[in-house]
């Protein structure tokens, strides 16, 4: 068997029944899959035996925060407002603007797959590469999901997330 055949679905040594009852906001008993965001970190992980699943880092238009800047005309100090119902003190020098609030070191990143990752295994992605909306709030508040559970399907992770409603 080639080194990473199991990663491509040749083995099913550890399949968790889905849906699992693991918590959705913490790793729980899942294995944690780390992310590397630099060439050096990716290559170091590869040398240690991980299989880097390289992906493009692409900002989603659905991800944004909102801010307006108010400035005290006397002192020059500024105040930020993320809620147009309340505003801020002083003069509004920048109107409410949607912006992408995240910064990443490179336009690529990689999930570091362990050798024995099996199809169907539910893991915890501690640093999500994809832009998934965590909460569809109003006032421009659409933060990205930073971490979460996902199932390995043999070629990629299927992120488990409910951004629009909760039941329980």
């Amino acid at each position, binding site marked *: 068997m080639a080194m990473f055949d199991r990663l491509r679905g040749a083995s099913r040594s550890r399949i968790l029944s889905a*849906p699992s*009852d693991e918590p959705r*906001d913490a790793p729980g008993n899942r294995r944690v899959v780390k992310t590397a965001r630099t060439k050096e970190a990716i290559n170091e992980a590869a040398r240690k035996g991980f299989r880097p699943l390289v992906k493009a880092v692409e900002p989603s238009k659905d991800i944004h*925060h*909102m*801010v307006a800047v108010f400035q005290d005309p006397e002192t020059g100090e500024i*105040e*930020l*407002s*993320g*809620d*147009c*119902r*309340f505003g*801020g003190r002083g003069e509004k020098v920048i109107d409410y603007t949607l912006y992408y609030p995240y910064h990443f070191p490179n336009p690529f990143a990689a999930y570091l797959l362990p050798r024995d990752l099996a199809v169907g295994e539910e893991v915890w992605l501690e640093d999500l590469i994809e832009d998934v909306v*965590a*909460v*569809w*709030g*109003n*006032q421009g*508040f659409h*933060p990205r999901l930073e971490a979460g559970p996902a199932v390995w399907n043999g070629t990629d992770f299927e992120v*488990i997330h*409910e*951004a*629009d*409603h*909760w*039941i*329980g």
Partner: protein
Amino acid sequence: MRFDPNTKKLFTDSGELVKVLHCPLRMRWEQLGTRASSPHRTCGECDHPVLDTAEMSDAEVLATVRAEPSVCLCVRARQANVNLLTVKHAEAGAAPDRGRKAGPGR
């Protein structure tokens, strides 16, 4: 109502904990059975009601859960009568305990 998406805790506007939402079966609203002339639905797996909190007051939700603690609730991110509690909101200048209005705010 106020809801913390991180802890899944639902509070009344006055801060009283109503329930921690947790569904081990990860049911989604569209999987639940509809009920005639009712906004609420029924879970076919557990055979008990799932209440749509969008049309309920804080007092109604609290009284229902107090009377029947195993009842399930559905809370939506864009629900007009729920504030989503976030820490990041405070960074942009609003009081953190005010939360975020989940419904249309403009």
